[in-house]
């Protein structure tokens, strides 16, 4: 095997193996179990294929590997890791390829967050919360004085929006998930008195089955569905704005613990909604009108029960009013 060779030029595979995370590259026998577990191919990019990427590396197809969407789109959710019969930490291998690609001057094709320095206070919260360690603080001179700002490495950012929600000043944003763009979607047409109005925030990944996604679209006007990349993007302020505007309830749907597409978004959202509900309870206005549900890979069809259950609860709430 090549990694026992001491002579000859260093191959692409040698370089990948030499970096921690890349060492198990050649254990892959291309069974494709990883591909069947991965949501990216199904939901985002048909060309996405970890099995093929690993094969490219072994075959020395450096340029193709660096350009491959697989190199850039993997979000390290690690659903494939426990499924791999060879126990390869596939996202770590992909991470090494990504690192080499960045070193070679390739850039991420993903839509990533940017920082508005006029708004950024340099508090460092985005740095602390990012699942990928994409932001960091920099100091630079502004009008003769040193000031501190956040800077996001666009090659590392996956665009989940966890930092966008955590940033108190709205200084971090990415197209499609800025505060203004999400708030603009929070509206439900007026309904007859007994019909509850519900806003459902649903993460782009928790609904594995296409049927579940289309089911959400089939609800009548009183159910508004807002798609977000990750429930880590949820901001309790938005839920309050919805309730203030006369909407009866807010349902947030994310991934099951351990299955979050962006590693920690579902925990973040769980904490935020829990804190919000504690505060609503302290104010004596909670009544279960804000709910967070975590939908697992095996929970096909569950979204219907969750939405219907919420509507039932809100109908009872309205009757009690």
């Amino acid at each position, binding site marked *: 095997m090549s990694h026992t060779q001491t002579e000859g030029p260093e191959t692409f595979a040698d370089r990948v193996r030499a970096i921690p995370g890349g060492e198990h590259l050649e254990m892959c026998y291309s069974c494709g179990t990883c591909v069947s577990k991965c949501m990216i191919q199904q939901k985002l990019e048909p060309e996405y294929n970890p099995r093929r990427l690993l094969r490219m590396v072994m075959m020395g197809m450096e340029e193709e590997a660096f350009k491959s969407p697989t190199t850039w789109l993997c979000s390290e959710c690690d659903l494939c890791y426990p499924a791999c019969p060879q126990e390869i930490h596939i996202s770590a291998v992909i991470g090494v390829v990504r690192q080499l690609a960045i070193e070679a001057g390739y850039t991420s094709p993903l839509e990533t967050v940017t920082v508005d320095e006029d*708004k950024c206070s340099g508090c460092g919260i985005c740095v*602390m919360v990012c699942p990928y360690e994409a932001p960091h603080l920099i100091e630079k001179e502004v009008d003769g004085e040193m000031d501190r700002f956040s800077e996001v490495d666009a090659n590392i950012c996956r665009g989940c929006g966890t930092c966008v929600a955590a940033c*108190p*000043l709205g200084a971090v944003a990415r197209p499609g998930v800025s505060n203004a763009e999400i708030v603009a979607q929070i509206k439900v047409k007026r309904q007859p008195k007994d019909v509850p109005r519900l806003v459902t925030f649903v993460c782009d990944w928790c609904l594995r089955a296409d049927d579940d996604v289309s089911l959400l679209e089939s609800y009548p006007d009183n159910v508004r569905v807002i798609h977000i990349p990750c429930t880590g993007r949820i901001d309790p302020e938005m839920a309050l704005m919805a309730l203030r505007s006369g909407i009866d309830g807010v349902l947030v749907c994310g991934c099951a613990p351990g299955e979050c597409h962006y590693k920690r978004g579902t925990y*973040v959202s769980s904490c*935020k909604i829990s*804190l919000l509900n504690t505060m609503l309870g*302290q104010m004596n206005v909670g009544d279960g009108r804000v709910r967070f549900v975590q939908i697992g890979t095996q929970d096909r069809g569950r979204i219907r029960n969750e939405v219907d259950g919420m509507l039932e609860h809100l109908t009872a709430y309205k009757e009690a009013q």
Partner: protein
Amino acid sequence: MAKAKSKAKAKPKIAFYWAASCGGCEISVVELGLRLIQASELVDIVFWPCIMDFKYSDVEALKDGEITATFFNGAIRNSESEHIANLLRAKSQVLVAFGSCSHTGGIPGLANFYDKASIFERVYDTAPSVDEDSRGTYPKVRTKVSEGEIEIPKFYDKVKTLAQTVDVDYFMPGCPPVVEQIWTVLNVLLAGQLPAKGAVVGADAKTNCDVCTREKGGSSQRVSEWKRPHEVELDPDVCFLTQGVICCGPVTRAGCGLPCISGNMPCRGCYGPPDGVVDQGAKLMSAIGALIDTDDPEKLQEILNTIVDPAGLGYRFGLANSIMNQLK
């Protein structure tokens, strides 16, 4: 005050008033010290009941718009504070909501966790007291006594901010507003350099974190237990959040000069939300929730339980002004 009228050019008239507040805002004005005497040569103080002997009739006797600027501190708790707010609004060209209570409800605004009935029940009935005879005696707006009828102000169900009661021109935050900011604002107003109506004056646009020099958190530096300030020995050079202590700095407008943070105590949020933040408490929880470090759902609840009284933390000075308050 009367002497001023003899001068060729009338001096601008200034008023101060306190509604539901502790008096700290007045102390902050008095802290101007010798500069207050300097100011009193430039302006006529026509109403300042905390410091000098004035009657409400003195204000009623003024023409509408006769007062150049009124600095109104305190929240609107009862019919008296509401009446004086309306009166001073009519008599003033510029009305400044002065201090947290007037600006966002302040500490009195925390009463909005309850309503009038439960507050009265606690205060006049169930609270421990040495006077058992008067237990259960509730105040009434009108009471007949042998000399006739006496009237006291009506206590409202909720505490309101000044802007929820009358039209306000400027907002000056702080519990209390710091003395240097008061001096700056006073001079700006007297020079006629009026900012746009509705502006927050005597404060910055960004948050306390922008001016705080403590070392900020690094990548993935998250919190697995929240502690209250008295439970931990705090490093004075490091961000409170990274030490697991909730600081309202990230959601609080800068301008105070960081007296609490310099004293090694976390920010409590008295300068109110910065531009772009609508609900200070919810926004704080959006940051705090994301800082919690765990991938174990049971542990997660344990960590959340270490946050004692999230609403009290997030809305300490701003409950009356919050979206949360509007839901009740």
